């Protein structure tokens, strides 16, 4: 089995990858070749060949584990004794988890609103500026890199050196404080505002997404509406308030809800910047800690279920708004 599962040397890894891809191509090729006889193969066999592999994977990897996890959330650490709602009671009453829930709420309130606001301002401004392409690319760039990379970039901005003579700050934010005559701060350690400094990172990432979508929506506002408003004497802020914002309302809602879903599941930033210490943990990070570090499977499952339940209404609203904005068009 070594050629199949081995991961010791670089060659072995590359060969393993090539074998996996080849295997996949051959299996799918054989299946498709077998059903490629229009009149002799019953239709259900053809259907099974096309949707079967995908549905099998989904049943094995999403549906079945989902049910197992929901069941596990009513069991104890080891998954052997039924404990009813105890895990959920812990998650909603224990002081440590109340901080987690509070942080998650702050994230979900702040990130979508701030990122959408910045994105909207930027979309409006950039529409009338020179260097439009370059400016857009620079703001969108954080969206391309990993959240791990983004976290390290910002960790460096927040870097703290003790306030002693002869020690220079190397983090930009603390240097700015020093220039202003304020003593440097431990941004990532001082509670509770450290959560805000983590939130800044996700806002920085998501603004580019909001800007791109909203800029497209603004461009799609019909010229005659804008022209008519201008003839009526609307300019600047009035135009923004009475024409731009109402016209792109559906896009605004889609952006807000989409970012909210991303925010609810945020994990990488907290993991990389603080590891969830210093009172910065959120539900997705606590799920990882409980499931894979504390080996408390029951509580971990309960946190995953809480995440699931929190996502449902946002997704539902998101899809409804997408449908509505379709109808408008």
């Amino acid at each position, binding site marked *: 089995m070594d050629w199949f599962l081995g991961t*010791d040397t*670089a060659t072995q*890894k*590359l060969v*393993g*990858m090539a074998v*996996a*891809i080849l295997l996949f191509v051959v299996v799918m090729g054989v299946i498709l070749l077998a*059903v*490629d006889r229009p009149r002799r193969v019953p239709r*259900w066999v*053809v*259907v099974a060949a*096309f*949707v079967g*592999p*995908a549905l099998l*994977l*989904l049943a094995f*990897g*999403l*549906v079945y*584990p*989902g049910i*197992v*996890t929901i069941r596990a959330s009513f069991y104890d650490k080891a998954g052997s004794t039924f404990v009813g709602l105890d895990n959920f009671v812990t998650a909603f009453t224990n002081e440590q988890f109340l901080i987690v829930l509070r942080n998650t709420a702050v994230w979900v309130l702040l990130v979508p609103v701030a990122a959408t606001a910045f994105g909207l301002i*930027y979309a409006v401004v*950039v*529409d*009338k500026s*020179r260097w439009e392409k370059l*400016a857009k690319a*620079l*703001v969108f760039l954080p969206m*391309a890199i*990993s*959240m791990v*990379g983004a976290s*390290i970039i910002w*960790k*460096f901005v927040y870097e703290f050196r003790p306030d002693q003579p002869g020690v*220079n700050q190397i983090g*930009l934010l603390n*240097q700015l404080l020093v220039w202003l005559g304020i003593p440097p701060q431990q941004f990532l350690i001082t509670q509770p505002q450290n959560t805000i400094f983590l939130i800044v990172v996700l806002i920085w990432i998501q603004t580019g*997404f909001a800007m791109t*979508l909203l800029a*497209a929506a603004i*461009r*799609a506002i019909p010229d005659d509406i804008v022209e008519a408003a201008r003839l009526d004497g609307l300019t600047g802020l009035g135009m923004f308030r009475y024409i731009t914002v109402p016209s792109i309302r*559906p896009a605004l809602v889609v952006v807000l809800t989409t970012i909210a879903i991303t925010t609810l*599941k945020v994990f*990488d930033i907290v993991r*990389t910047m603080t590891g969830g210490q210093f009172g910065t943990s959120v539900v*997705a990070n606590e799920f*990882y800690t409980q499931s*894979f570090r504390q080996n408390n499977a029951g509580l971990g499952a309960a946190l*995953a279920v809480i995440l*699931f339940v929190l996502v449902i209404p946002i997704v539902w609203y998101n*899809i409804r708004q997408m449908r509505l904005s*379709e109808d408008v068009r």
Partner: protein
Amino acid sequence: MSTTPTPPVTDADAAATPAPRSRGVSDRARIARKRLSNPWASGIALVLAVLWTIPTLGLLVTSFRPELEIRRSGWWTIFGDVFSGEAQFSLDNYETALFGSSTNLGSYFLNSIVITLPAVIIPITLALLAAYAFAWIEFPGRDFLFVAVFALQIIPIQITMIPLLSAYVSAGVAGTFWTVWLSHSIFALPLAIFLLHNFMKDIPASLVEAARVDGAGHVKIFFRVMLPLLVPAIAAFGIFQFLWVWNDLLVALVFTGATPDVAPLTVRVAELAGSRGGDWPVLSAGAFISMVVPLVVFLGLQRYFVRGLLAGSVKG
């Protein structure tokens, strides 16, 4: 695009590729915009763009500075030093990060590549086939199944992880690349099937009918009619999936167990950030080693990239 219930895709399309027939109109629009271009707006846009870039620039500059300099002074002093001719640059940090025995990011880079390629090819192929059946083959229960697959998008991947991990352990593949390939493929499927189905639905029925009259079965129609027309959609989703897998931390962390044999760059770099938090020479270089591929993709394929990212932004 009237059957596509995802405005992000259409918006991105509209932004990325102005329809050729309305070139006259868009030309006039551009001229008009130029006339309206407002110095204040340009100023604010420029300030915001610079503000958004400074954090990245700071770490990039740092990654090229000698270790001692990094510890002694802030990266911004480099601008003064450049004028006075005292600025020092070196590639030592990259060498240490890539080949140093304690960091060894080179081998993690390889892991990232080995993880990413199959995790892009497998789900897209399976999703294309399934999407074709949902769009063009009549069978009982089709609509119900399609809605069910669509609805699976709301499942957070966290909820599947512990059971999946124990399934991998009992199958004897735990700690191999197979766990990550399979998991990424599974997690990508609902969105991929949904999006590709929408693109397939937009292909005129007359084309499919004509092929059918010529005696082509579903397999031939799929390969000869559908695939060539779907290349842009596949490229857009492919890039999105590529970046999603390359940038992922959670899936890799859980299923590879962070072992050096199979863990990707993100896992290792995140680990370094925790264990060697103050070691900025290695961290800054490491961060950019992990970001160079996404950055190249972003700069080179920006149009497809934006389209794919917007189409897939709800995933996770």
